[in-house]
Protein backbone atom coordinates (compact mmCIF):
# COMPACT_ATOMS: atom_id res chain seq x y z
CA UNK A 1 0.00 0.00 0.00
CA UNK A 2 2.87 2.36 0.85
CA UNK A 3 4.45 1.51 -2.48
CA UNK A 4 1.26 2.44 -4.35
CA UNK A 5 1.03 5.72 -2.43
CA UNK A 6 4.68 6.54 -3.14
CA UNK A 7 4.10 5.68 -6.79
CA UNK A 8 1.08 7.92 -7.37
CA UNK A 9 1.20 10.68 -4.74
CA UNK A 10 4.98 10.87 -4.47
CA UNK A 11 5.34 10.78 -8.23
CA UNK A 12 2.84 13.57 -8.81
CA UNK A 13 4.16 15.85 -6.06
CA UNK A 14 7.73 15.29 -7.12
CA UNK A 15 6.90 16.03 -10.75
CA UNK A 16 5.13 19.26 -9.85
CA UNK A 17 7.99 20.31 -7.61
CA UNK A 18 10.86 19.43 -9.89
CA UNK A 19 9.66 19.97 -13.44
CA UNK A 20 10.37 23.67 -13.63
CA UNK A 21 8.74 23.96 -17.01
CA UNK A 22 5.20 23.70 -15.66
CA UNK A 23 4.91 27.49 -15.59
CA UNK A 24 2.91 28.63 -18.64
CA UNK A 25 5.71 31.11 -19.38
CA UNK A 26 8.01 28.16 -19.99
CA UNK A 27 5.59 25.43 -20.99
CA UNK A 28 3.96 27.31 -23.88
CA UNK A 29 7.12 28.57 -25.62
CA UNK A 30 9.24 25.48 -24.95
CA UNK A 31 6.77 22.63 -25.27
CA UNK A 32 4.00 23.95 -27.51
CA UNK A 33 5.49 26.62 -29.79
CA UNK A 34 9.00 25.18 -30.27
CA UNK A 35 7.88 21.75 -31.57
CA UNK A 36 5.66 23.40 -34.18
CA UNK A 37 8.62 25.46 -35.42
CA UNK A 38 10.88 22.39 -35.39
CA UNK A 39 8.32 20.69 -37.61
CA UNK A 40 8.17 23.72 -39.93
CA UNK A 41 11.98 23.95 -40.06
CA UNK A 42 12.36 20.38 -41.23
CA UNK A 43 9.33 20.50 -43.52
CA UNK A 44 10.97 23.39 -45.36
CA UNK A 45 14.42 21.76 -45.36
CA UNK A 46 12.71 18.66 -46.75
CA UNK A 47 11.03 20.69 -49.48
CA UNK A 48 14.34 22.35 -50.29
CA UNK A 49 16.15 19.00 -50.41
CA UNK A 50 13.26 17.39 -52.33
CA UNK A 51 13.62 14.32 -50.16
CA UNK A 52 10.37 13.30 -48.47
CA UNK A 53 6.77 14.50 -48.11
CA UNK A 54 5.60 17.06 -45.55
CA UNK A 55 3.80 14.25 -43.71
CA UNK A 56 7.14 12.50 -43.19
CA UNK A 57 8.55 15.46 -41.24
CA UNK A 58 5.37 16.33 -39.36
CA UNK A 59 5.14 12.81 -37.94
CA UNK A 60 8.87 12.42 -37.38
CA UNK A 61 9.38 15.70 -35.56
CA UNK A 62 6.01 15.69 -33.79
CA UNK A 63 6.86 12.40 -32.10
CA UNK A 64 10.57 13.07 -31.63
CA UNK A 65 9.92 16.35 -29.81
CA UNK A 66 8.38 14.32 -26.96
CA UNK A 67 11.99 13.64 -26.03
CA UNK A 68 12.27 17.17 -24.60
CA UNK A 69 9.69 16.65 -21.83
CA UNK A 70 10.46 12.94 -21.41
CA UNK A 71 14.25 13.07 -21.15
CA UNK A 72 14.56 16.45 -19.42
CA UNK A 73 11.88 15.74 -16.82
CA UNK A 74 13.20 12.29 -15.97
CA UNK A 75 16.78 13.52 -15.74
CA UNK A 76 15.56 16.25 -13.43
CA UNK A 77 14.35 13.75 -10.85
CA UNK A 78 18.00 13.48 -9.85
CA UNK A 79 19.43 16.85 -10.88
CA UNK A 80 16.48 18.79 -9.46
CA UNK A 81 16.71 17.05 -6.09
CA UNK A 82 20.45 17.75 -5.99
CA UNK A 83 19.92 21.40 -6.89
CA UNK A 84 17.38 21.76 -4.08
CA UNK A 85 19.66 19.79 -1.75
CA UNK A 86 17.02 17.14 -1.10
CA UNK A 87 18.67 14.26 -2.95
CA UNK A 88 20.36 12.93 0.18
CA UNK A 89 17.11 13.13 2.14
CA UNK A 90 15.28 11.20 -0.58
CA UNK A 91 17.89 8.47 -0.71
CA UNK A 92 18.00 7.83 3.02
CA UNK A 93 14.24 7.29 3.24
CA UNK A 94 13.10 3.68 3.61
CA UNK A 95 10.63 4.18 0.70
CA UNK A 96 10.76 1.31 -1.79
CA UNK A 97 12.90 2.46 -4.71
CA UNK A 98 10.84 1.01 -7.56
CA UNK A 99 7.69 3.08 -6.91
CA UNK A 100 9.85 6.01 -5.79
CA UNK A 101 11.58 6.41 -9.14
CA UNK A 102 9.16 4.77 -11.56
CA UNK A 103 6.23 6.66 -10.02
CA UNK A 104 7.87 9.86 -11.12
CA UNK A 105 7.76 8.62 -14.69
CA UNK A 106 3.97 8.48 -15.01
CA UNK A 107 3.33 12.27 -15.21
CA UNK A 108 6.31 12.50 -17.56
CA UNK A 109 4.75 9.99 -19.95
CA UNK A 110 1.43 11.84 -19.90
CA UNK A 111 3.15 15.18 -20.54
CA UNK A 112 5.31 13.72 -23.32
CA UNK A 113 2.21 12.26 -24.93
CA UNK A 114 0.42 15.61 -24.77
CA UNK A 115 3.37 17.52 -26.25
CA UNK A 116 3.79 15.03 -29.11
CA UNK A 117 0.05 14.97 -29.82
CA UNK A 118 -0.08 18.77 -29.84
CA UNK A 119 2.84 18.99 -32.27
CA UNK A 120 1.32 16.37 -34.56
CA UNK A 121 -2.12 18.01 -34.65
CA UNK A 122 -1.03 21.65 -34.94
CA UNK A 123 1.92 20.92 -37.24
CA UNK A 124 -0.30 18.74 -39.41
CA UNK A 125 -2.99 21.43 -39.61
CA UNK A 126 -0.50 24.19 -40.50
CA UNK A 127 1.26 22.17 -43.16
CA UNK A 128 -1.94 20.52 -44.34
CA UNK A 129 -1.27 16.80 -44.26
CA UNK A 130 -3.99 14.28 -44.97
CA UNK A 131 -4.39 11.48 -42.43
CA UNK A 132 -7.36 9.07 -42.64
CA UNK A 133 -9.78 9.27 -39.71
CA UNK A 134 -9.38 5.54 -39.16
CA UNK A 135 -5.74 6.17 -38.23
CA UNK A 136 -6.50 8.61 -35.39
CA UNK A 137 -7.03 6.05 -32.60
CA UNK A 138 -4.00 3.90 -33.51
CA UNK A 139 -1.91 7.07 -33.81
CA UNK A 140 -2.91 8.01 -30.27
CA UNK A 141 -1.71 4.60 -29.09
CA UNK A 142 1.58 4.86 -31.01
CA UNK A 143 2.17 8.35 -29.60
CA UNK A 144 1.57 7.10 -26.06
CA UNK A 145 3.88 4.09 -26.53
CA UNK A 146 6.59 6.36 -28.01
CA UNK A 147 6.35 8.74 -25.03
CA UNK A 148 6.55 5.73 -22.70
CA UNK A 149 9.55 4.39 -24.56
CA UNK A 150 11.42 7.68 -24.44
CA UNK A 151 10.67 8.04 -20.74
CA UNK A 152 12.50 4.74 -20.30
CA UNK A 153 15.55 6.35 -21.88
CA UNK A 154 14.96 9.32 -19.60
CA UNK A 155 15.18 7.03 -16.59
CA UNK A 156 18.59 5.85 -17.82
CA UNK A 157 19.63 9.47 -18.23
CA UNK A 158 18.39 10.13 -14.69
CA UNK A 159 20.68 7.37 -13.47
CA UNK A 160 23.62 8.99 -15.21
CA UNK A 161 22.62 12.17 -13.40
CA UNK A 162 24.00 10.58 -10.25
CA UNK A 163 27.51 10.83 -11.65
CA UNK A 164 27.15 13.62 -14.25
CA UNK A 165 26.91 17.22 -13.09
CA UNK A 166 25.89 18.76 -16.43
CA UNK A 167 22.58 16.97 -16.88
CA UNK A 168 21.17 19.71 -19.12
CA UNK A 169 24.04 19.09 -21.57
CA UNK A 170 23.44 15.34 -21.34
CA UNK A 171 19.71 15.74 -22.07
CA UNK A 172 20.39 18.01 -25.04
CA UNK A 173 22.89 15.54 -26.48
CA UNK A 174 20.34 12.73 -26.17
CA UNK A 175 17.80 14.97 -27.91
CA UNK A 176 20.28 15.59 -30.75
CA UNK A 177 21.02 11.89 -31.18
CA UNK A 178 17.30 11.15 -31.40
CA UNK A 179 16.88 14.00 -33.92
CA UNK A 180 19.45 12.53 -36.30
CA UNK A 181 19.23 8.78 -35.80
CA UNK A 182 15.60 7.76 -35.31
CA UNK A 183 14.44 8.43 -38.84
CA UNK A 184 12.56 11.52 -37.70
CA UNK A 185 14.19 13.58 -40.45
CA UNK A 186 16.64 11.36 -42.26
CA UNK A 187 15.25 8.13 -43.75
CA UNK A 188 17.00 5.19 -42.08
CA UNK A 189 18.27 3.91 -45.43
CA UNK A 190 20.03 7.26 -45.95
CA UNK A 191 22.03 6.81 -42.75
CA UNK A 192 25.28 4.83 -42.69
CA UNK A 193 24.59 1.14 -42.08
CA UNK A 194 25.98 1.05 -38.54
CA UNK A 195 23.95 4.10 -37.56
CA UNK A 196 20.81 2.67 -39.08
CA UNK A 197 21.37 -0.55 -37.12
CA UNK A 198 22.04 1.34 -33.90
CA UNK A 199 18.82 3.30 -34.47
CA UNK A 200 16.83 0.08 -34.01
CA UNK A 201 17.73 0.30 -30.33
CA UNK A 202 16.57 3.90 -29.89
CA UNK A 203 13.16 5.13 -28.76
CA UNK A 204 10.97 6.60 -31.52
CA UNK A 205 12.56 4.66 -34.40
CA UNK A 206 9.82 2.03 -34.50
CA UNK A 207 7.11 4.39 -33.27
CA UNK A 208 7.77 6.91 -36.03
CA UNK A 209 7.80 4.18 -38.66
CA UNK A 210 4.52 2.79 -37.33
CA UNK A 211 2.91 6.24 -37.25
CA UNK A 212 3.93 6.93 -40.84
CA UNK A 213 2.50 3.62 -42.01
CA UNK A 214 -0.76 4.30 -40.16
CA UNK A 215 -0.97 7.77 -41.70
CA UNK A 216 -0.52 6.14 -45.11
CA UNK A 217 -3.53 3.91 -44.46
CA UNK A 218 -2.08 0.79 -42.84
CA UNK A 219 -4.23 -1.07 -40.32
CA UNK A 220 -3.07 -1.39 -36.74
CA UNK A 221 -2.44 -5.11 -37.13
CA UNK A 222 0.13 -4.34 -39.81
CA UNK A 223 2.17 -2.15 -37.46
CA UNK A 224 1.59 -4.09 -34.23
CA UNK A 225 5.10 -5.56 -34.40
CA UNK A 226 6.62 -2.10 -34.69
CA UNK A 227 4.59 -0.86 -31.73
CA UNK A 228 5.67 -3.91 -29.76
CA UNK A 229 9.31 -3.25 -30.67
CA UNK A 230 8.95 0.37 -29.53
CA UNK A 231 7.50 -0.77 -26.20
CA UNK A 232 10.27 -3.35 -25.80
CA UNK A 233 12.98 -0.76 -26.45
CA UNK A 234 11.42 1.55 -23.85
CA UNK A 235 11.04 -1.25 -21.30
CA UNK A 236 14.68 -2.25 -21.78
CA UNK A 237 15.86 1.30 -21.15
CA UNK A 238 13.57 1.61 -18.12
CA UNK A 239 14.96 -1.56 -16.54
CA UNK A 240 18.53 -0.50 -17.34
CA UNK A 241 17.82 2.96 -15.93
CA UNK A 242 16.33 1.62 -12.73
CA UNK A 243 19.26 -0.75 -12.22
CA UNK A 244 21.74 2.05 -12.93
CA UNK A 245 20.07 4.29 -10.36
CA UNK A 246 20.27 1.52 -7.75
CA UNK A 247 23.90 0.73 -8.54
CA UNK A 248 24.96 4.38 -8.52
CA UNK A 249 22.98 5.02 -5.34
CA UNK A 250 25.05 2.33 -3.63
CA UNK A 251 28.20 3.74 -5.24
CA UNK A 252 27.36 7.21 -3.96
CA UNK A 253 27.01 5.86 -0.40
CA UNK A 254 30.35 4.12 -0.63
CA UNK A 255 32.28 6.97 -2.25
CA UNK A 256 30.29 9.99 -1.01
CA UNK A 257 29.68 11.19 -4.55
CA UNK A 258 26.06 12.24 -4.18
CA UNK A 259 26.60 15.98 -4.05
CA UNK A 260 29.93 15.96 -5.82
CA UNK A 261 28.64 14.90 -9.23
Amino acid at each position, binding site marked *: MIGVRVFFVGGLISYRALFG*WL*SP*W*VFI*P*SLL*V*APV*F*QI*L*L*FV*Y*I*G*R*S*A*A*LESDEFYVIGNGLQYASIPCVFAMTNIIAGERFQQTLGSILITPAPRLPLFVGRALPVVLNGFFVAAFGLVVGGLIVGIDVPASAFAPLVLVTAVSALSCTGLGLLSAGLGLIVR*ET*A*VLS*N*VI*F*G*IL*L*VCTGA*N*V*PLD*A*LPGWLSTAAQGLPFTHGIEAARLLADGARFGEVARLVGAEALVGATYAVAGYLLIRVLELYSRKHATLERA
Partner: protein
Amino acid sequence: MRALRLLWVGWVMHMKMLTRSAFNFWLGIIYPLFFATAAFFMFQSGDDPKPLLYASLGAAVMGIWGATSTAAGAALARERWTGTLELLVTAPAHFALILLPVTIAMATIGIYSMISTLVWGRLVFGIELEVGDPLAFVLAVPATVVSIGALGFLLAVAFVRFRQAWALGNMLEYPVWLVSGFLVPLTLFPDWVRPISWALAPTWGIGAIRGAALGGAPYGDIALALSLGAGYTLAGILLLERALRTARVKASLSLS
Protein backbone atom coordinates in the same frame (compact mmCIF):
# COMPACT_ATOMS: atom_id res chain seq x y z
CA MET B 1 37.54 55.90 -24.92
CA ARG B 2 36.36 54.68 -21.51
CA ALA B 3 33.25 53.29 -23.15
CA LEU B 4 35.33 51.35 -25.68
CA ARG B 5 37.52 50.02 -22.89
CA LEU B 6 34.47 48.91 -20.94
CA LEU B 7 33.05 47.16 -24.01
CA TRP B 8 36.36 45.38 -24.60
CA VAL B 9 36.91 44.34 -20.97
CA GLY B 10 33.29 43.18 -20.68
CA TRP B 11 33.61 41.13 -23.86
CA VAL B 12 36.89 39.50 -22.77
CA MET B 13 35.59 38.73 -19.29
CA HIS B 14 32.38 37.15 -20.56
CA MET B 15 34.23 35.20 -23.22
CA LYS B 16 36.36 33.70 -20.44
CA MET B 17 33.31 32.85 -18.37
CA LEU B 18 31.38 31.37 -21.30
CA THR B 19 34.26 29.22 -22.50
CA ARG B 20 34.38 27.60 -19.06
CA SER B 21 30.70 26.72 -19.10
CA ALA B 22 29.82 23.26 -20.37
CA PHE B 23 26.30 24.42 -21.18
CA ASN B 24 27.17 27.62 -23.02
CA PHE B 25 30.39 26.47 -24.64
CA TRP B 26 30.45 22.73 -25.31
CA LEU B 27 26.73 22.41 -25.85
CA GLY B 28 26.85 25.55 -27.99
CA ILE B 29 29.27 23.70 -30.26
CA ILE B 30 27.70 20.24 -30.18
CA TYR B 31 24.00 21.12 -30.36
CA PRO B 32 23.99 22.85 -33.78
CA LEU B 33 26.09 19.95 -35.11
CA PHE B 34 23.10 17.64 -34.69
CA PHE B 35 20.94 19.91 -36.81
CA ALA B 36 23.73 20.35 -39.33
CA THR B 37 24.19 16.56 -39.53
CA ALA B 38 20.48 15.99 -40.09
CA ALA B 39 20.45 18.68 -42.78
CA PHE B 40 23.61 17.30 -44.44
CA PHE B 41 22.11 13.81 -44.62
CA MET B 42 18.88 15.24 -46.02
CA PHE B 43 20.57 17.30 -48.72
CA GLN B 44 23.00 14.49 -49.51
CA SER B 45 20.11 12.06 -50.04
CA GLY B 46 17.88 14.48 -51.91
CA ASP B 47 17.33 14.60 -55.63
CA ASP B 48 19.76 17.48 -56.02
CA PRO B 49 22.90 17.34 -53.82
CA LYS B 50 24.13 20.76 -55.05
CA PRO B 51 22.55 22.68 -52.13
CA LEU B 52 24.85 20.82 -49.74
CA LEU B 53 27.45 23.58 -49.86
CA TYR B 54 24.70 26.19 -49.47
CA ALA B 55 23.41 24.29 -46.42
CA SER B 56 26.85 23.82 -44.90
CA LEU B 57 27.39 27.58 -44.63
CA GLY B 58 23.88 28.08 -43.28
CA ALA B 59 24.29 25.29 -40.73
CA ALA B 60 27.61 26.80 -39.67
CA VAL B 61 26.03 30.19 -38.97
CA MET B 62 23.05 28.61 -37.18
CA GLY B 63 25.38 28.07 -34.24
CA ILE B 64 25.91 31.81 -33.82
CA TRP B 65 22.22 32.42 -33.35
CA GLY B 66 21.86 29.21 -31.32
CA ALA B 67 24.54 30.38 -28.92
CA THR B 68 22.84 33.75 -28.55
CA SER B 69 19.07 33.32 -28.41
CA THR B 70 18.52 31.36 -25.19
CA ALA B 71 21.58 32.76 -23.41
CA ALA B 72 20.70 36.38 -24.26
CA GLY B 73 17.14 35.85 -23.10
CA ALA B 74 18.53 34.66 -19.78
CA ALA B 75 21.29 37.29 -19.51
CA LEU B 76 19.46 39.59 -17.12
CA ALA B 77 17.86 36.72 -15.22
CA ARG B 78 21.33 35.31 -14.57
CA GLU B 79 22.47 38.60 -13.06
CA ARG B 80 19.25 38.64 -11.04
CA TRP B 81 19.90 35.12 -9.69
CA THR B 82 23.45 35.96 -8.70
CA GLY B 83 22.34 39.18 -7.04
CA THR B 84 24.50 41.41 -9.24
CA LEU B 85 21.80 43.07 -11.34
CA GLU B 86 21.21 45.93 -8.91
CA LEU B 87 24.95 46.55 -8.57
CA LEU B 88 25.40 46.71 -12.33
CA VAL B 89 22.40 48.99 -12.82
CA THR B 90 23.59 51.43 -10.16
CA ALA B 91 27.18 51.47 -11.46
CA PRO B 92 28.28 54.82 -12.94
CA ALA B 93 28.68 53.28 -16.41
CA HIS B 94 25.59 53.07 -18.59
CA PHE B 95 24.01 49.64 -18.23
CA ALA B 96 23.96 49.20 -22.02
CA LEU B 97 27.77 49.26 -22.02
CA ILE B 98 27.71 46.38 -19.55
CA LEU B 99 25.03 44.30 -21.25
CA LEU B 100 26.03 44.71 -24.90
CA PRO B 101 29.43 42.96 -24.59
CA VAL B 102 27.70 40.10 -22.76
CA THR B 103 25.44 39.31 -25.70
CA ILE B 104 28.20 39.90 -28.26
CA ALA B 105 30.39 37.46 -26.33
CA MET B 106 27.54 34.94 -26.53
CA ALA B 107 27.38 35.39 -30.29
CA THR B 108 31.16 35.13 -30.52
CA ILE B 109 31.01 31.68 -28.93
CA GLY B 110 29.02 30.75 -32.04
CA ILE B 111 32.23 31.12 -34.10
CA TYR B 112 33.52 27.94 -32.44
CA SER B 113 30.31 26.25 -33.54
CA MET B 114 30.71 27.69 -37.04
CA ILE B 115 34.25 26.34 -37.38
CA SER B 116 33.36 22.93 -35.96
CA THR B 117 30.37 22.64 -38.33
CA LEU B 118 32.52 23.47 -41.35
CA VAL B 119 35.20 20.99 -40.22
CA TRP B 120 32.51 18.35 -39.53
CA GLY B 121 31.04 18.91 -42.98
CA ARG B 122 34.47 18.60 -44.58
CA LEU B 123 35.59 15.49 -42.70
CA VAL B 124 32.35 13.51 -42.57
CA PHE B 125 30.41 14.69 -45.61
CA GLY B 126 33.27 15.77 -47.86
CA ILE B 127 31.94 19.30 -48.28
CA GLU B 128 34.79 21.40 -49.60
CA LEU B 129 34.49 25.11 -49.06
CA GLU B 130 36.56 27.44 -51.17
CA VAL B 131 36.12 31.05 -50.17
CA GLY B 132 35.76 33.20 -53.28
CA ASP B 133 36.43 36.54 -51.57
CA PRO B 134 38.52 36.01 -48.43
CA LEU B 135 38.52 39.69 -47.45
CA ALA B 136 34.73 39.88 -47.61
CA PHE B 137 34.50 36.60 -45.68
CA VAL B 138 36.77 37.94 -42.93
CA LEU B 139 34.58 41.04 -42.72
CA ALA B 140 31.28 39.18 -43.00
CA VAL B 141 31.84 36.82 -40.05
CA PRO B 142 32.47 39.50 -37.38
CA ALA B 143 29.74 41.68 -38.88
CA THR B 144 27.32 38.76 -38.49
CA VAL B 145 28.50 38.08 -34.95
CA VAL B 146 28.15 41.72 -33.90
CA SER B 147 24.73 42.13 -35.50
CA ILE B 148 23.44 38.90 -33.95
CA GLY B 149 24.91 39.98 -30.62
CA ALA B 150 23.03 43.27 -30.98
CA LEU B 151 19.82 41.35 -31.66
CA GLY B 152 20.55 39.36 -28.51
CA PHE B 153 20.97 42.65 -26.64
CA LEU B 154 17.55 43.79 -27.80
CA LEU B 155 16.04 40.46 -26.72
CA ALA B 156 17.71 40.64 -23.32
CA VAL B 157 16.30 44.12 -22.75
CA ALA B 158 12.86 43.31 -24.15
CA PHE B 159 12.49 40.36 -21.78
CA VAL B 160 13.70 42.24 -18.68
CA ARG B 161 10.31 41.95 -16.97
CA PHE B 162 10.01 38.20 -17.54
CA ARG B 163 11.33 35.88 -14.87
CA GLN B 164 11.57 32.96 -17.34
CA ALA B 165 13.07 35.00 -20.18
CA TRP B 166 15.33 32.13 -21.26
CA ALA B 167 12.27 30.22 -22.47
CA LEU B 168 11.22 33.12 -24.68
CA GLY B 169 14.75 33.34 -26.10
CA ASN B 170 14.76 29.59 -26.60
CA MET B 171 11.41 29.82 -28.42
CA LEU B 172 12.96 32.17 -30.99
CA GLU B 173 15.77 29.78 -31.91
CA TYR B 174 13.87 27.78 -34.54
CA PRO B 175 11.88 30.66 -36.09
CA VAL B 176 15.04 32.69 -36.77
CA TRP B 177 16.84 29.62 -38.12
CA LEU B 178 13.86 29.13 -40.39
CA VAL B 179 13.02 32.58 -41.73
CA SER B 180 16.60 33.87 -41.98
CA GLY B 181 17.28 31.40 -44.74
CA PHE B 182 20.08 29.51 -43.01
CA LEU B 183 19.08 26.23 -44.62
CA VAL B 184 16.15 27.09 -46.82
CA PRO B 185 16.10 29.69 -49.63
CA LEU B 186 13.78 32.57 -48.78
CA THR B 187 11.97 32.04 -52.07
CA LEU B 188 10.34 28.92 -50.62
CA PHE B 189 8.44 30.92 -48.01
CA PRO B 190 5.10 32.69 -48.47
CA ASP B 191 5.42 36.36 -49.48
CA TRP B 192 4.32 37.63 -46.05
CA VAL B 193 7.38 36.03 -44.44
CA ARG B 194 9.87 38.04 -46.52
CA PRO B 195 9.55 41.38 -44.64
CA ILE B 196 10.15 39.49 -41.38
CA SER B 197 13.30 37.98 -42.88
CA TRP B 198 14.51 41.37 -44.09
CA ALA B 199 14.13 42.84 -40.58
CA LEU B 200 16.44 40.18 -39.14
CA ALA B 201 20.18 40.82 -39.21
CA PRO B 202 20.98 37.07 -39.44
CA THR B 203 19.34 37.07 -42.90
CA TRP B 204 21.86 39.62 -44.16
CA GLY B 205 24.70 38.07 -42.18
CA ILE B 206 24.29 34.66 -43.80
CA GLY B 207 23.73 36.42 -47.13
CA ALA B 208 27.08 38.20 -46.70
CA ILE B 209 28.92 35.02 -45.69
CA ARG B 210 27.42 33.08 -48.61
CA GLY B 211 28.15 35.95 -50.95
CA ALA B 212 31.78 36.05 -49.83
CA ALA B 213 32.22 32.29 -50.07
CA LEU B 214 30.16 31.35 -53.10
CA GLY B 215 30.19 34.57 -55.08
CA GLY B 216 27.71 37.39 -54.87
CA ALA B 217 27.49 40.88 -53.45
CA PRO B 218 28.65 40.49 -49.84
CA TYR B 219 29.49 44.12 -49.05
CA GLY B 220 25.91 45.34 -49.35
CA ASP B 221 24.76 42.54 -47.07
CA ILE B 222 27.54 43.32 -44.57
CA ALA B 223 26.43 46.96 -44.48
CA LEU B 224 22.80 45.95 -44.00
CA ALA B 225 23.66 43.50 -41.21
CA LEU B 226 25.69 46.16 -39.40
CA SER B 227 22.99 48.81 -39.93
CA LEU B 228 20.35 46.52 -38.48
CA GLY B 229 22.70 45.72 -35.60
CA ALA B 230 23.07 49.45 -34.91
CA GLY B 231 19.29 49.80 -35.08
CA TYR B 232 18.78 46.98 -32.57
CA THR B 233 21.35 48.56 -30.25
CA LEU B 234 19.67 51.96 -30.40
CA ALA B 235 16.23 50.42 -29.84
CA GLY B 236 17.66 48.35 -26.98
CA ILE B 237 19.17 51.43 -25.30
CA LEU B 238 15.88 53.34 -25.53
CA LEU B 239 13.97 50.34 -24.18
CA LEU B 240 16.53 49.89 -21.44
CA GLU B 241 16.23 53.52 -20.32
CA ARG B 242 12.49 53.11 -20.04
CA ALA B 243 12.70 49.74 -18.28
CA LEU B 244 15.24 50.96 -15.74
CA ARG B 245 13.24 54.12 -15.02
CA THR B 246 10.14 52.01 -14.39
CA ALA B 247 12.14 49.57 -12.27
CA ARG B 248 13.44 52.41 -10.09
CA VAL B 249 9.98 53.93 -9.64
CA LYS B 250 8.26 50.63 -8.87
CA ALA B 251 11.22 48.88 -7.23
CA SER B 252 10.63 45.97 -9.59
CA LEU B 253 14.16 45.22 -10.76
CA SER B 254 14.52 42.01 -8.76
CA LEU B 255 10.98 40.86 -9.68
CA SER B 256 10.71 39.54 -6.12
